[in-house]
């Protein structure tokens, strides 16, 4: 199959998946008892009956389910994610406001997890009976076993409460809104440390184990023996031949894990008050703000699908065997 064909097929599957996600989620949210009018009344400390009727009319909540669904699908079809009932702004705008924070958190934590994870994995594979290997085993056990929110809270207790090194939460010291871009960036980086480390902790464990396992496998293969036999230096054998060939599984897993990273980010954002999509999603769900929840789900499915397609492409790039198939 040619490259174009594969891409077309992937995009086709992706679209079907997207529609399924939209219909399923819309149905689930609508059949849950209560609606945004109840949430708004809750937020306002009660409301007169006429106010609630007006809210329901305004947002078409009094319409039959099928017509609500149809209306939503047709607006999504033209890339209009609708209007947030709760925040009175367009959903696209709400998402775009929050997106940078989430992307920053996800990508920085993934870069940290992959780089440190691979490094630890390689070190462990190199000396299977060393202390490093023991550390990796312990770390991965811990990383897998500890829920993210717990790691987050633990870090807060340690580095905010007991030894105040880092700020409690948030993304930037609000007093710096007039400061220079450089100063703001430094402050954001300072706020980023704990949430980034927290979110990275699980994946660090995952990636280091994965690298170690796949390195050990590769190191046992014939071409490595050949490489050594022809007198290559050990470092070259390691990094040029072994590492490159053991990265395949890592890329696959990193791509597949992307959806898990996004849901992990929801929890980490809540713990660290990080103003991203996750906190928005949480608030929107609690407020039964259907357009916002749907918008976030739509958007995150889109991102996950795109990342998966991208992963396929990267795999083709680094592994000639897939290209040859």
């Amino acid at each position, binding site marked *: 199959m040619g490259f174009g064909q594969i891409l077309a097929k992937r995009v086709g599957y992706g679209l079907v998946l997207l529609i399924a996600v939209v219909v399923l989620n819309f149905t689930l949210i609508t059949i*849950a*008892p*209560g*609606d*945004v009018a*109840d*949430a*708004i*009344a*809750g*937020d*306002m*400390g*009660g*409301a*007169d*009956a*006429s*106010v*609630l009727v007006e809210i329901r009319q305004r947002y078409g909540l009094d319409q039959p389910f099928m017509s609500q669904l149809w209306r939503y699908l047709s607006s999504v079809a033209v890339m209009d994610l609708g209007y947030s009932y*709760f*925040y*009175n*702004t367009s959903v696209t705008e*709400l998402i775009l*406001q*929050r997106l940078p924070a989430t992307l920053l958190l996800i990508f920085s934590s993934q870069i940290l997890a992959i780089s440190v994870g691979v490094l630890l994995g390689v070190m462990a594979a190199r000396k299977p009976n060393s202390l490093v290997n023991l550390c990796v085993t312990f770390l991965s056990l811990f990383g897998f076993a500890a829920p993210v929110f717990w790691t987050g809270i633990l870090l*807060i207790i340690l580095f*905010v*409460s007991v030894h*105040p090194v880092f*700020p*409690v*939460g*948030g*993304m930037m010291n*609000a*007093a710096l*809104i007039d400061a220079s871009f450089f100063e703001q960036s430094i402050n954001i980086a300072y706020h980023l440390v704990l949430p980034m480390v927290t979110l990275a902790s699980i994946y660090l464990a995952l990636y280091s184990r994965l690298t170690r396992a796949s390195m050990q496998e590769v190191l046992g293969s014939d071409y490595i023996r050949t490489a050594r036999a022809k007198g290559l230096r050990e470092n070259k054998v390691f990094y040029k031949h072994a590492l490159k060939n053991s990265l395949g599984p890592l890329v696959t897993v990193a791509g597949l894990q992307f959806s898990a990273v996004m849901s992990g980010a929801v929890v980490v954002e*809540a*713990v660290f*008050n990080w*103003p991203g999509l996750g*906190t*928005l999603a949480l*608030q929107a*769900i*609690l*407020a*039964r703000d259907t357009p916002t929840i749907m918008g976030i789900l739509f958007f995150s499915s889109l991102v996950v699908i795109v990342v998966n397609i991208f992963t396929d492409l990267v795999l083709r790039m680094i592994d000639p065997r897939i290209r040859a198939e």
Partner: protein
Amino acid sequence: MKLAFKSLFAATAVAALMATSATADEPKTGGTLTMAIQQTPRHLNPAVQSGTATGVPGTQLFASLLRYDEGWEPQPYLAESWDVSADGLSVTVNLVKDAVFHDGVPITSEDVAFSIDTVKANHPFKSMFAPVTEVATPDAHTAVIKLSKPHPALLLAMSSQLLAIIPKHVYGDGQDPKTHPANSENVVGSGPFKLVEFKKGEHVILERNENYFMDGLPYLDRIVMRIMPDDSTRAIALESGELQMSGFESSPRNIVRLKKNADLKVSNAGYAAIGPVNWLAFNTKAEKLSDPMVRKAIAYAVDREFINKALNMGTAPTALTGIHPGSPFYDETVEAYDVDLAKANQLLDAAGYNKGSDGMRFGLSIDYGWPAMKPYAEYMKPQLKKIGIDVTVRSSADFPTWAKRISTWDFDMTMDNVFNWGDPVIGVHRTYSSDNIKEGVIWSNTQQYSNDRVDAIMEEAGATNDPAKRTALYAELQQILADELPLYPIFASPYHTVSSISAVGNASDSIWGTSTPLDRVYLK
């Protein structure tokens, strides 16, 4: 202005007196106060949105006609004086002469009339201005509010977040005020602070209004309100000094913890007008609970003292009635139903519900709507088992689920927390009025309780300005309700204002909590 000066002087004097325990600081101008708010406001305009999420930043941006001191006495604000006519059918308000909005446009009686109309048409609490028939504007600084009947709630409804004076030249452009863009961006009010930035989910940043109509105020240059929904995160931030102040703190565990910190003032002064009362509500139309004897038996079985000591860790005031204990109308002489299991058992026997072979008489369910209410609901299970009631605790996934169940009367009992919102007319009548049994409306009369005498008392108390008469009527109301028990009041939410002693002076102790102009707060 004379009156305003006088009240300013009085307030400063009171504050100075209260500060004697620390150091007698003089208020200083300048500085940035960092405080917390707990939820993202939908927007910042209290004229069309109730609730304290909007109220705390909203009262900094928008001034109202009156403000209230700690003793429930109205004080001049945008209104330099006011006069209620002898028949109670008109209230004349004289505006401060030199007040301007944030954009420099003078505030006139037209704006007052426009604001009252907008609030009347759009605010969720219809009872606040329902009797207003017309707002006349004989001159630029005089507004005359005409009423169809005397309306005792009017003055409180003219204060704090309940009546934001909004500019007609901004909101009168024909757009729906509920979704007006100026509710969140480029907000134009006349309060002590102007909007710098409102970032949803992150913060509201305010800066000093240099043209504020109260001379010499506000003291602060800036207020940063960080949106921090998590109780423990706020507690840590208060301890580490990242936050200098936080209002509406209500987690008993955190309050006790923060009280141990020598630099934190943890005060429960104020909040009486917000008036949050927590109770165990009964669905009086449910089979077993329609019998007042059963409701009384449950009241005798529940140990209010235990709840307040163990679950609230002594942080919350006891509430014997649905009117907040800090309200001038609170009647503490009602039947308290001190725990008496023998009596509770007797009542149930008399009601004809005998214990079965397993020691149980019948089953009831109890709901709760949000996590903070869970311990109280769970407490009921073992406690009511002692009198042979098999309680099932039913949780709801989120607030709307609970609200739907309760407001469609699909419940036996529920833990609930309802706010008084100033005058009983606004926040208390709605719970008991038989006109307000409305399907699908949370915090209406979801108990489905109906009593003609109760309706008559509320109508009379809502149409007289005579405080003595109102006190007597509300006392009678509370006695009847304590006897018929459509709900069993337990405690008032332990709202506390936490502030740094070394950094913050005049931390608010208003009856509206921190949902009040913070123009006298200063940094030491």
